């Protein structure tokens, strides 16, 4: 349920109406930023921020530190798997490497 996609806020479209322009891989759309704006802070502060966009609304600011932390955990799992691989040489490769 609920398709959402990360995009980067690139401009303020209408500060009074709380609308900003978000860019997803070169595709742009005006979105409502009420849910991600800091109360009282100018909307310009949002430019450059990454947000999760759902049906024309920026619903969450993407936390870059948390993303990095998740990736770090993942890379540790990856390293552990590689070590295991080295220990049990000759084990069946589950996946073929993509061309």
């Amino acid at each position: 349920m609920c398709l959402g996609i990360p995009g980067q806020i690139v401009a303020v479209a209408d500060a009074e109406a709380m609308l900003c322009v978000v860019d997803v891989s070169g595709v742009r759309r005006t979105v409502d930023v009420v849910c991600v704006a800091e109360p009282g802070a100018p909307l310009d502060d949002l430019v450059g921020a990454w947000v999760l966009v759902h049906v024309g609304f920026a619903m969450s600011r993407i936390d870059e530190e948390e993303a990095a932390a998740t990736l770090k955990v993942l890379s540790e799992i990856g390293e552990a798997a590689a070590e295991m691989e080295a220990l049990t040489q000759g084990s069946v490769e589950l996946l073929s490497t993509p061309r």
Partner: protein
Amino acid sequence: MRFVDEFRDPALASALVKEIGAIAARLERGRDKPFAIMEVCGGHTHAIFRYGLEGLLPDLVEFVHGPGCPVCVLPMGRVDDCVDIAERPEVIFTTFGDAMRVPGSKKSLLQAKADGADVRMVYSPLDALTLAKRNPDREVVFFGLGFETTMPSTALTVQRALREGVTNFSLFCNHITIIPTLRALLEQPDLGIDGFIGPGHVSMVIGTAPYRFIAEEFGRPLVVSGFEPIDLLQSLLMVLRQIEAGQARIENQYARVVPEHGNPAALRAVQEVYEPRETFEWRGLGSIAGSGVRLTAPYAAFDAEKRFSVPDIKVADPAQCRCGEVLTGAAKPWACPEFGKGCTPETPLGALMVSSEGSCAAYYQYGGIRGEAA
């Protein structure tokens, strides 16, 4: 694409699959049936099929595809109500694309459009509001559906309409909430679900606390997950690790998007604009207490149900459908006698064939590989 590509890395997938396989091998002793992990959210179901994740899992672990597709669980009677509103000459009926093909007892919105109703697909409720401003002599109705993820967007649009004095806009509210639904599911006596993958985008709105009862009262682990394949595999691994350790906790794999306490501005809008209905009917599951919402008194002027006095038709699901069993993990789609025969994506009988996120449609369209072998 940033925050997307990193979570589609095949090398990471390989490592996660190995780790999942290792846990499964350790858990295998004394186990005669697979661990059934339910992904609640239709978006997760879609990703599982799109990336072929099922084929990567060991035999001892399987996904059960849950009720989290708001399009699939929309009862036929509500679609009939939509058609009734849409066919009024003064109305421009706006909807997300998903809802266009959902069959009512007589026709879908797509068929109503073909019959002359002014039905328009929009990407955002904001676009429906814009349409209302551009067509002051028409009544623009937006078909609000979806779980807590989508509720803030329609609530904020209704608030915007009030602020801007747009009076020819209204909302046909069919929003449903996931928490009462999960409780109803868990209260089933023969539930064969060992753990849950929690809906990431619902959680970015409501936070992670509302799931606690799942661990505390029902002893099942839940991991809130992102939507990329690596997210799903990591979440599955986290659920299995809890099972191995004999734990049941609520964890958050999707912390880059989901704050612990959700989104205060979104929750505020939802609380102001919506209140629970006593009960709401789900296709395939029947009525679930407290699972639907309607507009609150201050926003009643924007309630399409009041504005158009909809017939509120009740239509029973076809008796031969086994959607309920599939939804609760008691049966696989291909165990249903109608699957792929009387019930196909072209002519869906049951809820789960309606949208590409329904597990039957997903198996029919994408999967089938395990099903064919079975």
